[in-house]
């Protein structure tokens, strides 16, 4: 579906995407994971054929975006990071207008709109103006709108950023259904749970480069341990405790408010900690998540 080779995007002297290689296969859900500024959105805009690559090659649906941009876009669905809904039109009108952009007949778009309103659970709000709707509803409408042309490939740029947990779960459920119906999904996110929920395969981007690639399970196996033990002590500085824990875990990570011990057996490590006479305020043994991989790979510095 997507084949990128040494794909590069530069803005003046700044390299947003630095020679990445990506292959996305039909029917899979593929994720771009990374902190802000990693180059995810620039990559998505190039795939969406609205941003010409500076260098490298890019083929989408077997076509060249530089030559066949409109033909490719006719077969894509795009959920941009910021909604581009017309807030003064109604929910239904937004779907109808967007359908017209694809040259679909009025009758076809009307029928499609009803189906999509149902899918996005917006039937009851069909005739409401968009502006006062909740963030979750607007996001669902944007996703519904992106499906108006029955796309083969759906691009979602941070689909659930800023939504409350209920709204996110509703969206994930809708995206699952799409995937089951054979739509190829490509999404960017900085939510690890989202990536673990949705993606068959993903790449972790940092500073415009791909730093890791694989399925969520593979990445956890490769870059983390099976379990993580979180220890919280009654101290402002957790660093001194790390030295007392040497040898208990494969790796110890010091956070401002707690210590992370990467280990294959959390409970056994917790017992070992107790045997050393240390008394943490709280002890939590949990499974390793993609978040551990992500933080390990992209560092813990705050990126704005």
């Amino acid at each position, binding site marked *: 579906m997507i084949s990128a080779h040494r794909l590069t995007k530069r*803005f003046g002297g700044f390299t947003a995407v630095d020679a990445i290689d990506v292959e996305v296969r039909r029917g899979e859900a593929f994720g771009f994971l990374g902190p802000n500024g990693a180059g995810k959105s620039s990559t998505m805009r190039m795939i969406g054929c609205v941003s010409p690559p500076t260098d490298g090659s890019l083929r989408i649906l077997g076509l060249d975006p530089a030559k066949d941009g*409109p033909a490719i876009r006719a077969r894509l669905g795009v959920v941009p990071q910021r909604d581009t809904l017309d807030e003064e*039109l109604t929910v239904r009108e937004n779907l109808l*207008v967007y359908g017209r952009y694809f040259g679909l007949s009025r009758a076809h778009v009307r029928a499609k709109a009803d189906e999509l309103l149902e899918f996005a659970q917006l039937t009851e709000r069909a005739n409401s103006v968009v502006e006062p709707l909740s963030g979750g509803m607007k996001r669902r409408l944007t996703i519904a709108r992106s499906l108006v042309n029955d796309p083969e490939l759906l691009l979602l740029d941070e689909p659930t950023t800023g939504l409350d947990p209920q709204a996110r779960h509703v969206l994930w459920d809708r995206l699952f259904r799409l995937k089951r119906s054979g739509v190829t999904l490509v999404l960017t996110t900085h939510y690890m749970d989202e990536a673990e929920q949705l993606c068959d395969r993903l790449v972790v981007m940092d500073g415009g480069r791909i730093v890791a690639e694989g399925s969520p399970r593979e990445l956890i196996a490769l870059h983390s341990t099976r379990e993580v033990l979180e220890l919280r002590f009654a101290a402002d500085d957790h660093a001194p405790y790390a030295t007392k824990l040497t040898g208990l875990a494969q790796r110890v990570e010091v956070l401002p408010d707690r210590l992370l011990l990467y280990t294959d057996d959390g409970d056994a490590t917790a017992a070992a900690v107790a045997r050393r006479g240390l008394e943490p305020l709280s002890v939590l043994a949990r499974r390793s998540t993609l978040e551990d991989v992500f933080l390990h790979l992209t560092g813990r510095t705050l990126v704005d």
Partner: protein
Amino acid sequence: MAGRAFSFWLTNYRRVWRGTLISGFLGPLFFLVAMGFGLGALVDDGVGGGLGGVDYVRFIAPGILAAQAMQTAVGESTFPVMGALKWQRQYHAMLAAPLGIADIVLGHVAFVAMRVAITSAAFAVVAAVLGAITSWWVLLAVPAAILTGLAFTTPVFAFAARQHDDSGFNVLFRFIVMPMFLFSGTFFPVEQLPGVLEAIARVTPLWHGVELCRGLVMGTATAAGSLGHVAYLTLWAAGGLWLAFASFRKRLVT
């Protein structure tokens, strides 16, 4: 494809057309009544009996027709363009679909032309009812007003697409549109102006639009003169379109 973009603006317009219709020609109507009948009574009683025997209100009616086309065009090409680029970002939505830059620009320009056509036609009807326009040539003056509007629409599109906030629009309205409205022959012949200012007035697109409309309505037009005005206005519209394509591409395709 441009038709698809046009159909969006039309959908949008369906909600607000009543309001724009009223506000669109009430302003020009006020000018027509105040200047034409109020001030006009004094002008017509003055030395020489008005403008060579022509009622003042009949002199300014075609001028206001053209000037109103300019104002509608500029108004529709500033904030709506910025909104579609920056606030509601409808242009971005179009670009994610199969539409291209030219489709997006042409579709919106066509909509602005339609808006100018509606307000111009409405004004012409009212002016005719009030007796300010009496010639059937007004049927050609309305298309002339639309062309005048287009001569402003496309350059202002190009300008608006390069703005990042609305402060540039204030400058445009205060220092370009308003002076043109007052000094490009709408209310008095530009021959009244001192030499340099007259020369400036004669290169403004509004003067050509006013002269074109006035010549048609008052029956003073010559074929060569009218074609010259049409060519000049077309040049502005075409040059502006070319600039608008470039500005939109620079702003949207990054």
